[in-house]
C-alpha cells in the first residue's frame, strides 16, 4: 500500500531555471492496485518515481508505504520495501557477476546481509525454479555472466529480481522503452504474469499508450507536475487511445506534446 500526501518538488529554486516538477500530488494505491502512469516529457513521472523510491526527498509532503512514514528514509533502507525496474536494461543487473549471484543479491534485499554464503545449494534450486517462470532458458545458465545476456534477457532478469521477494511496492520506470517491439512484448507479458502471481501493488510509467491501457486496473495522466486525469477500474476497460488524447486536449486545451506517445 502506497500513499502520497501533498507532494511538492521544485528544481533549481530561486534561479531562472526554476521548474516545478511536482505540484501537490495526492495519490493512494490500495493493495493489489496496478496503476499505469502516462504523460508527456517533463510531466513529472520520473520525479514521482524518484520521490517514492527515495532517490529524491520532496520539498513538501509525505510518503507512506504500508502505513509507515518513509519520507525521510534513505534510498537503500527504503529499498527493502520497493522493487524497481529501470528503463535502461543495463541498470538493473551487475554485468560482471553471474546470474545466480545477481539473484542472490536480490534475494537478500529484504534481509540483513551477513557473512553467510550468498549462493547456497538450497538457494540455487530456488533460483532455478523462479528462472523457469521466465521461459528464457536462463535456468540452465546460472553461472553465465549477466553482461553476456541480451538486453531483453537482462530486463527479464531485472524484473524477476525486483519481484520475486514480493516487495510492498513495485515501480516500473518505462521498463520496456529501450527494447525492440518483440522483446518489449515479451517483457510486457511477463510483467502481467508476475504482478498477477504475487499480487503486487504496482506503479508503472510508460510512454506507450496501448501498454498503459492493456496493463493494470487504474490509469493516471500527468502534465506539468500535476495529475490531470484519473481513470478507475470500471472505466479503464473501455478506454481507447483516441479518447485519452481527446481527454487531454479537453483538460489542457492543447494537443499532447509527445511524438513518442502519439506514434506508439
Amino acid at each position, binding site marked *: 500500500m502506497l500513499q502520497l500526501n501533498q507532494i511538492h518538488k521544485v528544481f533549481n529554486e530561486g534561479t531562472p531555471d526554476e521548474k516545478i516538477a511536482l505540484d501537490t500530488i495526492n495519490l493512494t494505491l490500495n493493495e493489489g492496485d496496478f496503476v499505469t502512469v502516462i504523460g508527456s516529457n517533463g510531466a513529472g513521472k520520473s520525479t514521482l518515481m524518484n520521490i517514492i523510491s527515495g532517490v529524491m526527498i520532496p520539498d513538501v509532503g509525505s510518503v507512506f508505504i504500508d502505513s509507515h512514514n518513509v519520507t525521510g528514509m534513505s534510498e537503500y533502507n527504503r*529499498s527493502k520495501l520497493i522493487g524497481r525496474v529501470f528503463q535502461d536494461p543495463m541498470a538493473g543487473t551487475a554485468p560482471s557477476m553471474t546470474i545466480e*549471484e545477481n539473484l542472490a543479491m536480490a534475494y537478500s534485499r529484504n534481509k540483513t546481509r551477513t557473512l553467510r554464503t*550468498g549462493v547456497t545449494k538450497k538457494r540455487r534450486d530456488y533460483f532455478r525454479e523462479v528462472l523457469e517462470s521466465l521461459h528464457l532458458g536462463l535456468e540452465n545458465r546460472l553461472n553465465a555472466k549477466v553482461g553476456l545476456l541480451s538486453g531483453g534477457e537482462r530486463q527479464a532478469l531485472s524484473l524477476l529480481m525486483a519481484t520475486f521477494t514480493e516487495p510492498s511496492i513495485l515501480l516500473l520506470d518505462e521498463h520496456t522503452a529501450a527494447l525492440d517491439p518483440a522483446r518489449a512484448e515479451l517483457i510486457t507479458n511477463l510483467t502481467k504474469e508476475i504482478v498477477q502471481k504475487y499480487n503486487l501493488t504496482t506503479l508503472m510509467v510508460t510512454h506507450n499508450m496501448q501498454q498503459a491501457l492493456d496493463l493494470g486496473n487504474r490509469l493516471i495522466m500527468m502534465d506539468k507536475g500535476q495529475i490531470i486525469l484519473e481513470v478507475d477500474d470500471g472505466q479503464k476497460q473501455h478506454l481507447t487511445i483516441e479518447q485519452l488524447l481527446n481527454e487531454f486536449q479537453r483538460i489542457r486545451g492543447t494537443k499532447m506534446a509527445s511524438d513518442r506517445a502519439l506514434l506508439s
Partner: protein
Amino acid sequence: MFTAIFGAFESGIIYAIMALGVYLSFRVLDFPDLTVDGSFVTGAAVAATMIVSGANPFFATVTALFAGFIAGCITGIIHTFGKINALLSGILMMIALYSINLRIMGKSNVPLLNTETAITHVRDFWDKTGIDSFFNAILSMVGLGDSLPRTWGIILFMLVVTLTIKFLTDRFLKTEIGLALRATGDNKRMIRSLSANTNMMVILGLGLSNAMVAFSGALIAQQGGFADVGMGIGMIIIGLASVIIGEALFGTKTIARTTLAVIGGAIIYRIVVTMALRVEFLEPGDMKLITATIVILALIMPKIIDRTKEKKRKAKRLAGSMNISELPSGRKGEAGAAIKSDS
C-alpha cells in the same frame, strides 16, 4: 643468479598480500585508491615501532593490519560523506599518513636488525626442524648446490599466510556482504535499489584493502630489517603492475583464479625487477622507472597485439579481393561474393 631469484620469490609472496589489497580496491570496488602508498608504511611503522619497544612481533603485525584498516576506512569516509573525488581522497590520505607515519616512528627510519621479529621467529623455529637440509640436498642433487636460499622456512611460511589470505578473500567475496561489495564496484545504482548501503560498502572495502596492504608492509619491514618513511613511494603502481601482469598471464575467469593470478603477478613482477637490476647499466635507483615502464607496457601490449591481429585479418581479406580483380570484369561481383562467403 638463483639466490637472487629465491630472494625475489620470497619478497614477491609478501608483496602479493599488498597486491591482493590493491586488487580489492582497484578491481573489485573500481576505486583507484592511492592511500596504499601511505598505509603500506603505516603497517611497517606500527610493527617496527612496537617490536623495537618490546612487543610480541606477531601481535605487532596484527596491530599493523588494524592500523591499515582504519586508514582505509578514513579514505572511504572522506570519499563518501565528504563527496570528494576518489583519486583526490586517496592522495589526501596518503599525504596525511606521511606525517602520521613519522609521528609513529619518531624518526624517518627504524632499524630492526638484531631484533626478534616474526621472520626471525619463524626462521629459528624452522632451523630446529631440520627440513632445510632435506630440501637443500635435493637441490644439490639437481646441480643447484651453490645457489641455496638462506632458509626455506620463510618462503613456506609466507606461502601459507598469503594463500590463507587469498582463500579468506575468495570466501568473503562470495558471502552476502561480499556480493554487495562487488556489486558496489559493478553497478552502484542497482545494488542500492537492492537495499545495500553503498557508502558503507566502499568504506568497508577500502578498509579491508588497506588492512592487507599494511599487513604486507609490516612483514616487508621485518623481512628487510627496517621501516622507512619513504618505503611506500610508488607502492600503488607496484600493486597495479602485479594485478595487471597476473590477470594478463593467468586469466580472470573466476574470483579464485583472479586472486591466484594476482599473487602470481606479484611474484613475477619481483623476479622481472630483480633480473632487470642485474643488467649492468641499471642502478637500484632506476627501480621506479623500471616499474613505470613495466606497467605502461602491460597496459599497452594487449592493445597492440589486438591491433596487429586485426591488421593481419584485414590484410588477408585484402589479398582475397586482389585475386578477384584479376578475374574477367563481368563476373567480378559474383565471384567476389562467393570468395568472401568462403573465407
